[in-house]
């Protein structure tokens, strides 16, 4: 049986899709057969970030409505073996997704894959609820910022009450915290929440901290999951997080502000594109 992992956050723009792409690629790189599903019907970003947007023929809505078979809609990644993408539809709205339809897709994928990643849309509406409903594990993506932490807290409550595991009163969904866009220098200046503050509020195990890094935007724009940029700190942080997810004990890196601004600028690049 495949493990179903939802990548969720409540708030938009915190890095769910970047994380989904990086994590799915990272798991596949480690030899795990992985499929990543874009639940953001109507917006459709995952295929862009994965660099497969020109290969999309069918999407998840076509499969649910019986217009295409799952195998026709799945896109096999050409760079990473064992990785597949199920894109979202850009022409439908979220009502086209049904719980029964998604259940059928996940069941079918379970036979062929080790991990099924569900890239959740923002919010706590139908699309987000469907993305998390079947989850065995959850990666909660949070920025070190008050509203993001608040929304993540909210989604954690939803996970423990509205997921299938909660409804069936089974062992609860395993939660992982991934803090993204972390800038130690801004934390030091008091412009961002400290990692400890985020951890204290959310009170779930920390999977990783991904520093704010220009490589993320570059990766998005070139359709390359940032984990493939092994030189970048963000890529390394995602690689560490995947390792921890698979049970390795790795120290958290990139948490300290750099003493030399010149070197810091070269490494972290600030917010410039």
């Amino acid at each position, binding site marked *: 049986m495949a493990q179903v992992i939802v990548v969720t956050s409540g708030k938009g723009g915190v890095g769910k899709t970047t994380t989904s792409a990086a994590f799915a690629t990272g798991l596949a790189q480690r030899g795990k057969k992985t499929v990543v599903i874009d639940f953001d019907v109507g917006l459709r970003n995952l295929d862009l970030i994965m660099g497969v947007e020109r290969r999309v023929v069918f999407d998840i809505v076509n499969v649910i409505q019986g217009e295409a078979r799952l195998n026709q809609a799945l896109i096999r990644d050409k760079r990473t073996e064992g990785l597949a993408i199920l894109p979202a539809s850009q022409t439908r709205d979220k009502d086209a997704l049904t719980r029964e339809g998604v259940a059928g897709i996940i069941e079918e994928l379970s036979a062929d894959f080790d991990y099924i990643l569900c890239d959740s849309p923002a919010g706590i509406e139908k699309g987000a609820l469907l993305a998390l409903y079947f989850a065995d594990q959850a990666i909660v993506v949070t920025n070190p910022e008050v509203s993001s932490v*608040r929304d993540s807290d909210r989604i*954690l409550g939803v996970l423990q009450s509205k997921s299938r595991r909660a409804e069936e009163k089974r062992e609860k969904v395993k939660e992982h915290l991934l803090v993204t866009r972390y800038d130690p220098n801004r934390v030091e200046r008091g412009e961002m929440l400290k990692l400890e503050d985020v951890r204290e509020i959310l009170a779930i195990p920390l999977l990783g901290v991904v520093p704010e890094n220009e490589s993320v935007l570059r990766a998005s724009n070139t359709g390359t999951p940032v984990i493939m940029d092994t030189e970048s700190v963000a890529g390394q942080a995602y690689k560490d997080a995947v390792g921890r997810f698979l049970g390795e004990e790795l120290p958290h890196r990139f948490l300290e502000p750099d003493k030399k601004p010149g070197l810091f600028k070269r490494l972290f690049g600030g917010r410039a594109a």
Partner: protein
Amino acid sequence: MSQTLPETFRLRAGNFNLLVLRLLDPRPEAVLPALGDQFRRAPGFLRFAPIVIGLGDLEAAPEEVDFRALIEGLHALEIVPIGTSGGSAAMRKEALAAGLPPLRAVGGKDAEELPAAAPPPAAEPTEPAPAGPDFQGSGRSAMVVTEPVRSGQRIYAQGADLIVTGTVNPGAEVIADGNIHVYGALRGRAVAGAQDDTEARIFALHFDPELIAIAGFYAVREQLGDAPIGRPTQVRLDGEELRFAPLG
């Protein structure tokens, strides 16, 4: 006949502070004058005050105590005996026959309730200790929450106290008809005494709430200027004012 009758009474548990008159001598003619002396020195001190007669310290056989004479004498001193506490079962039975029912102290079995050192041979089995937990002063049970209470979640302990072992996060709401205890940080809203119990209190080890209310009297964060924010704190209602005191 669908007409509903007007409510004529409500049955509720209540807890009262009462004075206990612990008898050391079974003879009313010895006790009453001494009591009268003491009360003359403090006139009005206990006028018409209800009093419980403590039998636990009395070393006498039940038939030696003339409860009727004692009751009459106490009434003459303007003291109103309402029941007994402690003593042997036979002793309590005698008192009951004279119109003084046995009362049980809150908190269950204490020294007063144990049978007297030398129970008479005819003693009936003593009453069993009350089953289950007995909460001092409230009589309520408690609901225990061991997960963090997260934004958007709302927990209501109906007819009970609420104990949260972790934190109550911003945007979360905890409500109890009784007291609220938060052993982590209280960062959300806390509403105690939701059924207008003005005695309810709120306790938090890290006090940082968005809103606090007891029996409908509330304060939002902006009004908590004097409260010990970030510290262990107890909140209670004093008249219509919320009072904040550091804990410990």
